[in-house]
């Protein structure tokens, strides 16, 4: 076992619900000990993939090996080695925090002193020890999340799945949860598979990111590698009347739904003077110009023409994507 390099190996995984294909043949590998993030908008197929990898759903086709075992053929062996925090709350609201831990431990066959010590250690880790005898129904969303994280660590999983661990939490609580996740990687030698639609979350936590959209992985790599897909910098322009991509020769240009123009360039400080020149030639008046290093959102935009945050997909209709002539 010790020599195995990958904690998760997925090949051509497909999941259909009736006629609808939620996961359309994804393949990826997660190395042992890394934090791997699935980044994608709502409905991309993240939860479905997690449910397959955690043996809750059977794949329609394809193969997935988790912690060295096949999720279909050796489901029980996989279950022994994984932990999961579900997207939707799964705490027992009529029990206290301590009892929730006790029941979880029991379901995993733990008992006695060892279990008690572990519960104390983990409740202290997520700073819930002083609330251990409080009923979970009186916990805030953030406290419930922390309890779920503590619970998922109780049986020492080799691979931990976190499905949108900070969904619906306020920014402060989110940062708090991030610090636990980072501490977990440091202290426990664990592989973490995380899904999120917050690009900051993937950027902050993940060693490698796979961007998933409509059931397909459209890019993967380290955050740096992904940003290189965009190029160097991203420039945003606001122009007077009628945003249109005008003739330039330095990169791809998109008109955003809010009327701004976005241009991907290799170097903003060189490109900006030339943009002014080109604009002047065309008789376009620039009102505002900003630029920044690309974010994962820019990468998503670059690859799909949509923003991750635009959840329904209706906003996208107005987007015109134009490749500039080289």
């Amino acid at each position, binding site marked *: 076992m010790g020599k195995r390099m990958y904690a998760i190996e997925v090949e051509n995984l497909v999941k259909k619900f009736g006629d609808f294909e939620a996961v359309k043949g994804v393949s990826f590998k997660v190395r042992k000990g890394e934090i791997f993030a699935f980044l994608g908008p709502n409905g991309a197929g993240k939860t479905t993939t997690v449910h397959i990898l955690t043996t809750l759903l059977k794949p329609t086709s394809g193969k997935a090996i988790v912690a060295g075992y096949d999720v279909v053929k050796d489901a029980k062996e996989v279950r*022994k080695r994984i932990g999961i925090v579900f997207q939707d709350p*799964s705490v*027992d609201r009529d029990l206290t925090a301590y009892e929730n831990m*006790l*029941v979880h431990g*029991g*379901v995993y066959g733990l008992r006695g002193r060892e279990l008690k010590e572990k519960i104390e250690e983990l409740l202290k880790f997520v700073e819930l020890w002083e609330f251990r005898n409080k009923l979970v129904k009186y916990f805030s969303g953030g406290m419930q999340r922390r309890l779920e994280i503590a619970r998922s660590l109780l049986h020492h999983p080799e691979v931990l799945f976190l499905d949108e661990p900070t969904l619906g939490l306020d920014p402060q609580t989110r940062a708090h949860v991030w610090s636990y996740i980072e501490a977990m990687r440091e202290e426990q030698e664990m592989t973490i598979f995380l899904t999120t639609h917050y690009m900051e979350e993937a950027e902050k936590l993940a060693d490698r990111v796979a961007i998933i959209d409509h059931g397909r992985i459209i890019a993967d790599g380290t955050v740096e590698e992904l940003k290189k897909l965009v190029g160097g910098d991203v420039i945003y322009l606001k122009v007077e009347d009628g945003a249109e991509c005008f003739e330039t020769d330095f990169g791809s240009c998109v008109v955003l739904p809010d009327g701004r123009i976005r241009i991907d360039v290799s170097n903003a400080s060189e490109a900006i003077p030339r943009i002014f020149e080109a604009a002047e030639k065309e008789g376009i008046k620039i009102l505002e110009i900003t630029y920044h290093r690309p974010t994962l959102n820019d990468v998503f935009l670059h690859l799909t023409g949509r923003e991750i945050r635009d959840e329904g997909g209706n906003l996208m209709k107005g987007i015109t994507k134009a490749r500039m002539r080289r």
Partner: protein
Amino acid sequence: MRAFEIMVYRQVKRFLRARSRVAGMIINPLVWLAFFGIGWSNAFRDTSIFGGVDYLTYLSPGIFAMTVFNQSFVSGISVIWDREFGFLKEVLVAPASRKETIAGRIFGDSAVATLQGAIILSLTFFIAKINLLGVISALGVGFVLAVAFSSFGVSIAARMRSMEGFQMIMALVMLPLIFLSGAIYPIAFMPSWMKALALANPLTYAVEASRVLLTGVSGIFPLYQSLLILLILTAVMLYIAMVSFERSTVE
């Protein structure tokens, strides 16, 4: 056995927490005893139709069985809530045997339902002629009955995709099974089609057995026969519940 044990613990703990709900569950059988039972017992002068005891005494074991039945069926079906609120997924990703886990939940619920039956039973002492020596065995019968119907509830819940059918199932199962069990009136006087339905109802055998044990009034079967049939039906229902739960997915 650890998963079994911890599920019993969970169900009992949750019950002890929900005291107001418990009070609510006990009021229903009390209303039956007080208003239905006392009302009719004054109307029925001829005790021979009830095996020589007054109607309240005849009814009490029936209300005991009804309490256990209602309580256990509702807790079995509440596996749907576990699905809704995520606990089910917790259990399904765990390496523990699903059969064992659900059996633990069923036995925990059954202990709780039997306890509620015991509360009702102790109240009937004041209004009916209950044979004290039969109480322990009657509670045993109550427990077996509870296992049967929490299993039945689990089997239904495992097949239900939403809460929508819930009301219909309650209406279709709860009252008819009570009327078709001999809890409220003797099976002997039922028309034959109704009698046939009563004989297919596991609740019937629990009512019969606990009535013999608590009041000495026998119905259509001797005690050992009722017990045997109840045990066999319960074993079958428990097995079906375990298999249904094992196959359930989150899909």
